[in-house]
């Protein structure tokens, strides 16, 4: 009924509340198969990390645990300096884009949800319709635009297409629907202006949704490939995926080095996941149920 209840609801969904059954053979079999499936799921990640710790002569054997694990590959790849820059670039871009999305998507979602004004429906439909326009369609004009305004090979150039997303706007609008108008009107009576109401009253009420949005946007930008590939020129401006892609070719397929690069670009998101697991899964659930 109210925004405050979003969290408990999704929590409840995620709680392991299946009826307790005695551990019979069927249950044990089910668990074992699920476990094996899960292990198979993480195998590629495990081999990536394991290979990044191997010497070249070990790379092609099937052992998951290297005979003599070492960090030389990491030293080699990081000494080169480029991965460090790619990492920083990816981080800057993902963080700024995430902040922008959180602010603008929620501002637009909030306005479309809580204000009555002429043109509201048209604006909503127009923004929603951009979901139908594939990014690929825009890449060429964006490229020309960037070229014209000198945005090629700049952070701004990499970021500008993603500063706001229709999906985020839609998601936030859905969530603001759960905020009772009373909350907003009470603040109006207390004398806050609309900007203050949005920021100090409405935004804190949808924090879980903001977290979900932030995680999606961050992940999306951290792993974005095609546009950064097109818009960046210099090696120093690459993002991790673009850098990794070029590194993969350039390394003459020295798999232990490629796996090291892949690990460098993957491990941060894995760590983020393991720390914020609860929030992220909640975000996925909310996107699934609300989107």
């Amino acid at each position: 009924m109210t925004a405050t209840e979003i969290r408990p609801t999704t929590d409840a969904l995620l709680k392991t509340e299946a009826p307790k059954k005695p551990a019979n053979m069927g249950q044990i079999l089910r668990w074992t198969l699920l476990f094996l499936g899960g292990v198979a799921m993480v195998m590629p990640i495990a081999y990536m990390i394991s290979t990044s710790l191997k010497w070249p002569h070990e790379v092609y054997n099937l052992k998951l645990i290297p005979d003599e694990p070492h960090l030389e590959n990491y030293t080699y790849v990081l000494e080169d300096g480029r991965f460090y820059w790619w990492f920083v670039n990816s981080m800057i871009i993902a963080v700024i884009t995430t902040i922008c999305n959180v602010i603008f998507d929620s501002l637009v979602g909030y306005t479309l949800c809580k204000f009555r004004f002429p043109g509201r429906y048209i604006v909503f439909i127009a923004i929603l319709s951009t979901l139908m326009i594939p990014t690929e369609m825009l890449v060429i004009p964006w490229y020309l635009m960037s070229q014209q305004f000198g945005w090629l090979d700049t952070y701004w150039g990499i970021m500008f297409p993603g500063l706001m997303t229709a999906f985020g706007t839609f998601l936030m609008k859905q969530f603001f629907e759960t905020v009772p108008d009373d909350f907003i009107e009470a603040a109006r009576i207390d004398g806050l202006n609309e900007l203050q109401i949005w920021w100090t009253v409405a935004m804190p009420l949808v924090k879980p949704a903001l977290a979900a949005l932030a995680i999606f946007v961050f992940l999306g930008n951290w792993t974005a490939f095609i546009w950064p590939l097109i818009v960046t020129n210099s090696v120093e401006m690459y993002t991790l995926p673009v850098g990794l892609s070029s590194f993969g070719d350039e390394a003459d397929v020295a798999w232990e080095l490629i796996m090291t690069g892949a690990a460098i670009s993957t491990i941060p998101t894995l760590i983020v996941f393991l720390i914020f697991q609860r929030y992220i899964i909640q975000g996925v659930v909310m996107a699934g149920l609300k989107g």
Partner: protein
Amino acid sequence: MAFFNVKALAVATATSAAALFSTAAQAVEIEYWQYFFDARVKAMETLIENFQEANPDITVKMTHFPYADYRTKVAAAIPAGEGPDVVQLFYGWLNDYVAAELIQPLPADVFPTSQIDAEFFPMVQAMKDGDAYWALPTAVRSLALFYNERLLEEAGVEPPTTLDEMIAAAKAMTKRDGAGNLTQVGMTAGMTAQDHHWWREGLVRQFGGEPYVDDYQTVNYNSDAGLEALNFYASLFSGDDAVSAIGFMDEPQAAFKAGRAGLHIDGSFRIGSLNDTRGLKWGVTELPATADGTRSNYSSYWVNAITTKAEGEKYDAAVKFMQYITSDEAMQIWLDVVGELPAKPSVGLTDANANDPVFGPFIKGLAYAHTTKFANESGQRQLMVEMVERMTLQGMSAEESLAIAAEAEQKILDDYYKSASN
């Protein structure tokens, strides 16, 4: 009237201050672009350092891009008025840049046509238009046969000099596991790397054909010679006694670097990265000849040109820079660092260079090398890749596949020359 005097004085002060300022910051900065390849960047850094020492009033800023994107970047930046003053271009792209007025001809007084004609390898004359050269290379490249010394020794064979010897040596070095899978190839194969050049300008000609006619505007390899060349190439990786496999270790040079391939055809630019490979003992020899001694090779080069963006003092600086990077000194540095061959016989064909165990085979190869004029190098290469794939993956006959490739390539050429003439 005092007012006006004060104003005049102020203007005068401002002007002289500006003048002062500009003298202080007098060094002209020009920008140089090339694609990223470690050795090329290092070499160019050395050249720029030397050049700036000799011309303290000029600074050169180098920017480099990955090979895959380089062409896009150059094409996008120059029209936007952003790009370099001096740019490195693949020789095959030059026509586009001339047509789009993105580069300007080299001044004939500094680069006299007659002198260049005489001093450079004749292949650079493709860059000439009437009385002026549009661009000049520092270095040229050709192909040669790399071999893994350890594997040759193990198999007890010598570096091959003919195609037959090459096949025999490769056979001796090929290894399979119990299931019949290749674990070591006698020779690498793959049109994605340099083999498409070797096939076009090497094998087709060695088997008596001519790959293109009409100044590379008409495909001519769909012939008996072409078919023979293709069959020979396919024999490397087809049949039970194949000495190679397409896609073995993902990429040919990777297999060679990993010590899992005995022989490998590649360009001189590979020397640097092979030198860096730990534990690999390798040698290089000329591309194998046919039984009757016919040899042929492929050469290509990257040229430097002055863009239309360079004007005034930047143009003067750019001309000076061009002069330096096409000088004998620059060519020798480029050879030492990158392994690419000097564009002038006078530098390249010194006894020291020609007898160099590493550079020698490449430099000798230049003497009988041909330069393909590409309309769309990656597109044309892709056709070679697919020509082989049709045979290996779909079992198509060499004849049929060759005909399809020839037709498709002719179409690319027609499209290109048609729109170029517009």
